[in-house]
């Protein structure tokens, strides 16, 4: 199929998704899709992603469409440069199909915190698709695009991938350039990928990975070679961290994990129990570290440099800052800025921020010891429950944060991890998470390809 035909078909699917009320896109147009197809058609050689339409989370900057981070404070902002990831995807022949809805500034676990309305779950519109990359996840799950970019700070790709029944891959920290990713938590942020299959996600990750002189936190190594799915898992030791299988785990998730463990065993891997005791503290650690970094990163949105401006009652510059930020940021972003400012403020820094940094070191050390002890990969549930109902957790921020209980320790440790669909519970997808040692993304993807082949992601688990 020609790029022009793919562009037309993708446009029709985007229009259908919009008409169905998915609310997964913030910006797309047939004219931009056609221009992308023309550009790809004129490339002298077909790239590895030739003609693949890819949706981009709206916190990754592009020159041909606005980048708003789903926030009023950036309404109408158009970047003068492309993110490195976008430049590399375009060079590989991909077509940028749409900018996807998200939780405002990537803060949320349900994509209910977008200033432009919540995203619906493609299988049940009364439920959430997860977050914060919920728009990207919904577009892939609804079959609109085969792959999409999201971003992870504390699980914002793996968690919605699990809720939506697709593949979500968070690479090792430093594997993909963040140049052009709007900063949230700089010691955590990773551009990450959704795919309908492990191979789709791996090909996108391969095309955009590798050192970037414009991002000094990228590891000075070349792009990731796209691994083929392993024929089996013989010789691999897969660790099951006991803290990730609590007695009160949702029965549907537990059943999904049982069939995944059986499949891994059937593929020839040895399953061993391990312990990651400090993962119990991952959520509180994350909700100190990430808001602290966010409070610093979001200080730049002041009504002077970006987006709309609001003059305060006093008419001076500080009143302008306060009024612009007070009206431009939504409730969840304001809450996190306040928490981040509080934990960094005089008298509380040692009690909260310094303490959290030390616990973070212990969490990372647990993973290091597990892998040093001879485990090749770790296997856990991705989420504690299937997709929850919209509005169920919006009144209690801590209840929302706990949706990330199995994903955010890995973000704190900077490790690669992915979620693959392993079945459905009463029609709702269940995901399993694979975690690998630092920079062993290829091993993780190759093993996931083998598991994907034998586990029916759309079969009921019980």
């Amino acid at each position, binding site marked *: 199929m020609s790029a022009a035909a793919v562009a037309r078909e993708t446009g029709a699917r985007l229009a259908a998704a919009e008409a169905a009320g998915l609310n997964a896109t913030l910006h797309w147009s047939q004219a931009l899709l056609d221009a992308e197809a023309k550009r790809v058609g004129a490339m002298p050689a077909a790239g590895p992603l030739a003609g693949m339409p890819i949706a981009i989370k709206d916190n990754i900057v592009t*020159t041909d469409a606005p980048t708003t981070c789903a926030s009023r404070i950036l309404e109408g902002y158009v970047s*003068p*440069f*492309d993110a490195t990831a976008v430049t590399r995807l375009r060079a590989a022949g991909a077509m940028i199909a749409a900018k996807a809805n998200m939780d405002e500034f990537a803060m949320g676990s349900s994509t209910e915190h977008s200033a432009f309305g919540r995203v619906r779950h493609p299988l049940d519109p009364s439920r959430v698709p997860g977050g914060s990359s919920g728009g990207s996840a919904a577009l892939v799950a609804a079959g609109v695009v085969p792959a999409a970019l999201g971003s992870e700070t504390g699980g914002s790709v793996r968690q919605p991938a699990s809720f939506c029944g697709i593949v979500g891959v968070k690479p090792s*920290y*430093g594997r993909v350039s963040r140049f052009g990713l709007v900063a949230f938590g700089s*010691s955590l942020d990773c551009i990450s990928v959704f795919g309908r299959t492990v191979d789709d996600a791996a090909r996108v990750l391969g095309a955009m990975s590798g*050192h970037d*002189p*414009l991002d*000094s*936190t990228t*590891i*000075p190594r070349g792009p990731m070679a796209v691994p083929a799915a392993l024929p089996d898992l013989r010789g691999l030791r897969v660790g099951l961290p006991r803290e990730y299988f609590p007695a009160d785990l949702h029965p549907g998730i537990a059943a999904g994990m049982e069939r995944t463990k059986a499949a891994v065993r059937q593929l020839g891997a040895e399953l061993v129990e391990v312990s990651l005791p400090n993962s119990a*503290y991952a959520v*509180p650690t994350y*909700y*100190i570290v990430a808001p602290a970094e966010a*409070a610093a990163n979001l200080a730049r949105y*002041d009504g002077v440099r970006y987006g*709309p*401006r*609001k003059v305060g009652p006093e*008419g*001076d*510059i*500080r009143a*302008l*800052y*306060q*009024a612009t*930020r*007070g009206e431009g*940021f939504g409730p969840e972003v*304001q*809450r996190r*800025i*306040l928490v*981040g*400012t*509080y*934990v960094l*403020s005089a008298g509380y820094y040692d009690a*909260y921020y310094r*303490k*959290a*940094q*030390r*616990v*973070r*070191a*212990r*969490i*990372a050390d647990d993973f290091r010891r597990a892998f040093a002890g001879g485990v090749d990969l770790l296997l856990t549930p991705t989420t504690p429950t299937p997709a929850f109902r919209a509005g169920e957790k919006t009144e*209690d*921020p*801590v209840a929302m944060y706990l949706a990330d209980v199995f994903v955010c320790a890995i973000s*704190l*440790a900077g490790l690669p991890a992915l979620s693959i669909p392993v079945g459905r519970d009463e029609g709702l997808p269940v995901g399993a998470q694979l975690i690998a040692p*630092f920079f062993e993304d290829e091993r993780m993807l190759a093993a996931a390809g083998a598991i994907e082949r034998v586990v029916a992601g759309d079969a009921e688990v019980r």
Partner: protein
Amino acid sequence: MSIGRDDVLHVAKLAELAVHERDLDRLVGQLNRIVDYVAQLDQVPGDGTADAFLPGPQQVTLREDVPGSVPLARPPAAIAPEFADGFFLVPRHGAMEDL
């Protein structure tokens, strides 16, 4: 540790964030809920000597110190609301208008 209305107003001022009076009680409740929750880190055994953990390269590689800029899709004049003689024009303090 309990956060009161004055604490929220103080932190909001540090964060350059206008907080409406009508939102204050809700924010006090939510911030207390969050701070009480993260306080469970006090249960982690003290380890005063542990280093903070940061992921990423052991040593940051700096690029060549050659003057240059990122190529822009549009020149600065096309990005700025107002631009003249190589400068971005911003409103004079005290004379700003709602855009």
